[in-house]
């Protein structure tokens, strides 16, 4: 016998699977049916013993047979397992050990890469049991994978104890959000009904059962198959009186175990599963033959199951029952032996596991090093929540008189800050400040201010920065740093004059004594506050200078921040989008050449893409986003990019892609991220409108209205416009306008109009544009057919240099004029201008709408463009003159019969961009197929 005892009769000994055939089929088919992002997930919820794990096993085996690669992991209930435990455990079974990575995003990427390798060309099924014990990092990884960001064709099958979801478990919220997605199912596993219970009991007893016994089993088990099965065995084995509770059933069984087997069961119950044979042999000090005999007995009595990686109890419920039966001293002794066994095992120690045992062994001194090591390991894997729990445990293990406590407190505070436990971070910091060897006053104030600012308690944070500045022990460098942070905070609070004054001071100090980071921060605050106070040139000069300084330092973080600020200033308040885009792209290239600053690169590219979108260069925006997505963003950065890309899909009219990205956003937001909810709802409304789903658009906007803060003028502006537009489109389509929704939208517009006076000038300009659009939509809802408000809106957006809303306004302006039969020449010109803009951008649904209006009023859109539906494909040779140089290159390649991908490779542009060009070409040549387009080209050439 080698390192483990095999459990021969595993399958036969398991009771039959009763009443789950339909569920099993359904789950498999749900897992097969990947959503638009190429992923799928089934979460099985149900009470303990209802058969979740069994369903997981059966499904996994069927899916393996169907050609899936299957990976299985189990989450641990030791409360402080290491980050990503179940997934890393699953990978280790296949000898993949994930290496540490440069940042949290890179780690997710690396895990995905390993999963892709494991899967090869198969689809991957990841099975996770006891997901209610999953750590935060595992949940984030799961969402990352399901959103399709890891580029793994993954199906996830996970079991969750229903009991856990009753309280405030984080999974509750995650599942509530995920269950709305088409690719996710939440299956609630109900107890068996009476007939099914009888079927199960009959199968186990071999048919010998009285009807009243069957009834009793059903009543006592409540249809719980695990309990019913055990009761049925009692019946079969002739135990006269049926036990009432699971506890009684198992305690009676335990009594029948041989003494050594009893020890084995208790040991495994105290261990962290799976318990390897070598470890068990050290914990249960028996000679090998006796140990093996004991294990065999435990297996035969159905307490223990054996697998390749070690022993487990057949059900965790049993461990919970046994835990109540073991004397505290016995338990402590077991844990001590586990600790000793694991320490002597050699190899890389599992610190989290060791910490778990030493703590329960009542040996704080031996536990502490393991706990600290586990905290550091967790930090290496960016599991700040887990790290924070370990640091907190370390504090519990030490008393005030232990000198290490000061350092532990500092770590505990910082890790709490990192994982968003703001309140706790502050409490720890308070305790730290009372230590004799605490850091200096200034340092403490700075840290407290930082924590407070992160918690959104800005007023108190401001006071703390002031205190830091006044502290007697404040060094010049700290003073520069505090002033720069304070200026940044004031800027966020919208107190531009204060921010400006503070930033001036900070800059002066930073130039003499500060770090480059302080200098960049102070410059940015000065630049933005100046721009908001209508002195943009002064601000711009300062930030440009900051970029130069960062360039000289060459440090990626400083470069990233400096470029980010400059690009934000240019594309934001200064509305100099072209230059902003240029700066953002240059910054991203610069960082790429250094091979660092991955987060900054992603953010810079997001700014560039958003800017390009606004100036109507959609094909280019698309190329930038494709580039940014190649950096494999995660978390909030990924959400930003997906939202930007989705906005593009909505504009292009690629509905499937838009839905896919919206689903991905919703998946990521299930893990938290409130500030992105409104942009998501706005896009949902925009998408629904193109599809003529007015009610859906209305619902998205109305939900948005209930979640906007009254000072978010920009967000209210976009939302209100979308809402009014949805009502107007519904009205135009002959459907009723919702008076309640309309009333609330008008209230929102009034709020916006009232608030705009207090806003900074750049904000005022944008809000003005939305107010114009809203007023114009209201005129449409009221059937006024008035071109004037639309003409006004068009002018405003022209001034903002944003062609899309300007063109949209022109379309409506023309439509109103044509309806009224006034100023037809102006209307035609507006319509043509809108059409030119729409086609240049590749805004297909929008262009189609313009064409529809043109057809309705029999207006020719261009002298040489036919507006009769089903235009004839035989265009004249000079039509190629409409094409841009790039489009002609694409057409030439297309005429050679190349695919989009091949054209992309030929011209060094993305496949997607080729698609956009092809769309433009089709629109301009009024053709519908590649063959027709080729014909036009070949005739003309």
């Amino acid at each position: 016998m080698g390192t483990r005892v095999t459990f021969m009769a595993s399958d036969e000994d398991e009771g039959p699977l009763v009443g789950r055939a339909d569920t099993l089929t359904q789950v498999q088919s749900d897992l097969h049916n990947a959503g638009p992002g190429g992923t799928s997930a089934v979460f099985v919820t149900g009470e303990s013993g209802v058969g979740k794990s069994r369903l997981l096993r059966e499904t996994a085996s069927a899916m393996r047979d169907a050609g899936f690669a299957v990976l299985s992991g189990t989450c641990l209930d030791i409360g402080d397992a290491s980050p990503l435990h179940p997934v890393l455990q699953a990978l280790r079974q296949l000898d993949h050990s994930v290496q540490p990575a440069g940042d949290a995003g890179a780690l997710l990427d690396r895990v995905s890469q390993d999963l892709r390798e494991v899967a090869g060309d198969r689809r991957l099924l990841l099975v996770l049991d006891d997901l209610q014990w999953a750590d935060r990092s595992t949940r984030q990884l799961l969402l990352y994978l399901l959103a399709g960001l890891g580029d793994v064709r993954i199906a996830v099958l996970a079991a969750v104890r229903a009991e856990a979801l009753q309280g405030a478990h984080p999974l509750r919220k995650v599942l509530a959000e995920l269950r709305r997605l088409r690719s996710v199912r939440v299956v609630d596993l109900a107890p068996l009904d009476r007939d099914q219970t009888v079927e199960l009991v009959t199968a186990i007893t071999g048919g010998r059962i009285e009807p009243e016994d069957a009834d009793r089993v059903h009543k006592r088990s409540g249809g719980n198959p695990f309990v019913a099965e055990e009761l049925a065995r009692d019946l079969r084995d002739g135990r006269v009186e049926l036990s009432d509770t699971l506890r009684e059933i198992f305690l009676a069984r335990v009594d029948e175990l041989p003494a050594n087997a009893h020890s084995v069961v208790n040991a495994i119950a105290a261990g962290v599963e799976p318990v390897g044979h070598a470890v068990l042999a050290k914990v249960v000090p028996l000679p090998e033959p006796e140990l093996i005999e004991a294990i065999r007995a435990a297996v035969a009595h159905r307490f223990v199951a054996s697998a390749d990686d070690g022993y487990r109890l057949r059900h965790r419920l049993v461990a919970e029952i046994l835990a109540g039966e073991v004397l505290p001293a016995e338990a402590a002794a077991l844990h001590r032996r586990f600790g000793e066994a694991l320490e002597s095992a050699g190899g890389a120690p599992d610190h989290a596991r060791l910490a778990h045992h030493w703590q329960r062994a009542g040996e704080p001194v031996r536990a502490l090093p393991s706990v600290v090591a586990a905290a550091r390991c967790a930090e290496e894997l960016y599991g700040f929540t887990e790290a924070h729990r370990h640091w907190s445990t370390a504090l519990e293990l030490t008393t005030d008189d232990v000198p290490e406590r000061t350092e532990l407190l500092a770590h505990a505070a910082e890790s709490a800050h990192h994982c968003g436990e703001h309140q706790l971070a502050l409490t720890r910091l308070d305790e730290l400040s009372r230590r004799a060897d605490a850091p200096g006053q200034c340092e403490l104030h700075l840290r407290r201010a930082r924590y407070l600012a992160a918690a959104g308690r800005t007023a108190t944070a401001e006071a703390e920065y002031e205190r830091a500045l006044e502290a007697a022990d404040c060094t010049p460098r700290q003073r520069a740093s505090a002033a720069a942070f304070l200026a940044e905070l004031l800027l966020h609070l919208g107190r531009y004059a204060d921010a400006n004054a503070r930033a001036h001071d900070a800059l002066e100090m930073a130039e003499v004594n500060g770090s480059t980071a302080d200098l960049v921060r102070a410059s940015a605050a000065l630049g933005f506050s100046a721009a908001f106070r209508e002195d943009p040139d002064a601000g711009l000069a300062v930030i440009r200078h900051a970029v130069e300084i960062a360039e000289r330092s060459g440090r990626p973080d400083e470069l990233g921040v400096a470029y980010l600020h400059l690009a934000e200033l240019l594309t934001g308040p200064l509305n100099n989008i072209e230059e902003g885009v240029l700066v953002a792209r240059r910054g991203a290239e610069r960082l790429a050449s250094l091979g660092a600053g991955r987060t900054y690169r992603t953010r810079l590219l997001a700014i560039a893409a958003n800017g390009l979108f606004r100036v109507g260069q959609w094909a280019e925006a698309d190329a930038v986003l494709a580039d940014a997505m190649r950096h494999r963003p995660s978390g909030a950065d990924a959400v930003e990019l997906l939202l930007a890309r989705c906005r593009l899909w909505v504009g292009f009219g690629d509905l499937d892609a838009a839905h896919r990205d919206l689903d991905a956003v919703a998946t990521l937001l299930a893990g938290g991220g409130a500030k992105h909810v409104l942009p998501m709802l706005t896009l949902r409304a925009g998408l629904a409108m193109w599809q003529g789903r007015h009610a859906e658009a209305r619902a998205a906007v109305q939900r948005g209205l209930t979640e906007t803060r009254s000072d978010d003028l920009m967000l209210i502006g976009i939302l209100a416009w979308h809402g009014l537009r949805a009502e107007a489109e519904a009205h135009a389509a002959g459907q009723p306008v919702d008076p309640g929704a309309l009333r609330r939208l008008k209230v929102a517009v009034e709020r916006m109009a009232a608030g705009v006076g207090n806003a900074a000038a750049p904000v005022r300009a944008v809000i003005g544009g939305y107010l114009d659009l809203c007023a114009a939509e209201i005129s449409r809802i009221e059937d006024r057919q008035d071109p004037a408000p639309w003409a006004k809106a068009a002018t405003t957006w022209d001034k903002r240099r944003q062609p899309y809303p300007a063109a949209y306004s022109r379309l409506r302006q023309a439509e109103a004029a044509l309806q009224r039969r006034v100023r037809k020449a102006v209307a035609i010109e507006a319509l043509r201008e809108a059409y030119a803009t729409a086609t240049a951008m590749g805004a297909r649904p929008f262009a189609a709408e313009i064409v529809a209006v043109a057809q309705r009023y029999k207006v020719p859109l261009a002298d040489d463009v036919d507006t009769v539906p089903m235009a004839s494909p035989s265009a004249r040779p000079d039509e190629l003159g409409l094409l841009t140089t790039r489009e002609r290159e694409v057409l030439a390649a297309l005429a050679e019969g190349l695919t989009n991908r091949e054209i992309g490779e030929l011209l060094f542009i993305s496949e997607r961009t080729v698609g956009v060009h092809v769309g433009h070409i089709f629109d301009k040549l009024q053709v519908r197929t590649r063959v027709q387009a080729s014909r036009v080209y070949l005739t003309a050439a």
Partner: protein
Amino acid sequence: MNQSVWGPAQREMTDLLRDHPDDVPAVVDQLKALQQILGQVPPLLGENPLCDFNKLYLTITEGVLERLYAGRFKDPAFLSRLDVEFAGRYFDALRAWAGAGASPRCPEVWAALFQRIPGPDCRPLPSACAGVNAHINYDLPFALVTTFDHLGTDPIDDSDQHHDYLEINEIFAEAIPGLRRGYLEKWQLLIDTMNGRLDDWWQGEAVEYTRNVAWRNAQKLWGVRHDMRATDQERAGLDRTAAGLNKLLLSPLGAFLQ
């Protein structure tokens, strides 16, 4: 599991509860639909105690929605999430209800009210109060914790969120006296004119008192939210306490309230 606790309304109930509303307007819609369905549950029909609670809750949620649209809250994102989370727990309890002794996942405090649906008849006011008690003393702390967790902020006294949370007290205060008068019969009207002010005051205090308790409990839960065992113990404790109060409210003694 073929119990039809909802009688002829079983099917409609199952269909309705299949939806999980994710914004406040949808919660209002769901409560309205629920009001219709609950009115068909025999034998008491519209007189059943859950109907009384649901009606009150609907009124309150409509009040919340109106205030959201009117921009009356400091942090509407927080309040909207909270409202949805909060309501979700009531709907969960309804989903879990499969009759007395057969609903292991239905909180005891809700079960105490649900099992009175078929009678014996009890007064509308204590019924509505029993629902409020279940919802506020048991559901609310958890809804708060989930919401804060989702938004990534802590439950801190005097924060914007605390302010918004307390604003709801006013909605309750407005809703309860009004509803109350709607329920009164002649002889009770007499008592009410005599003690009306006192009763309104008492009741307003009760709501405010319990809601502050909910905030405190949420803060307590917040501290242990990563510890499943501790959370579960707290949950069981809250359930027991609140269920005890409900049994009292729904006993003949509770009728004195009205």
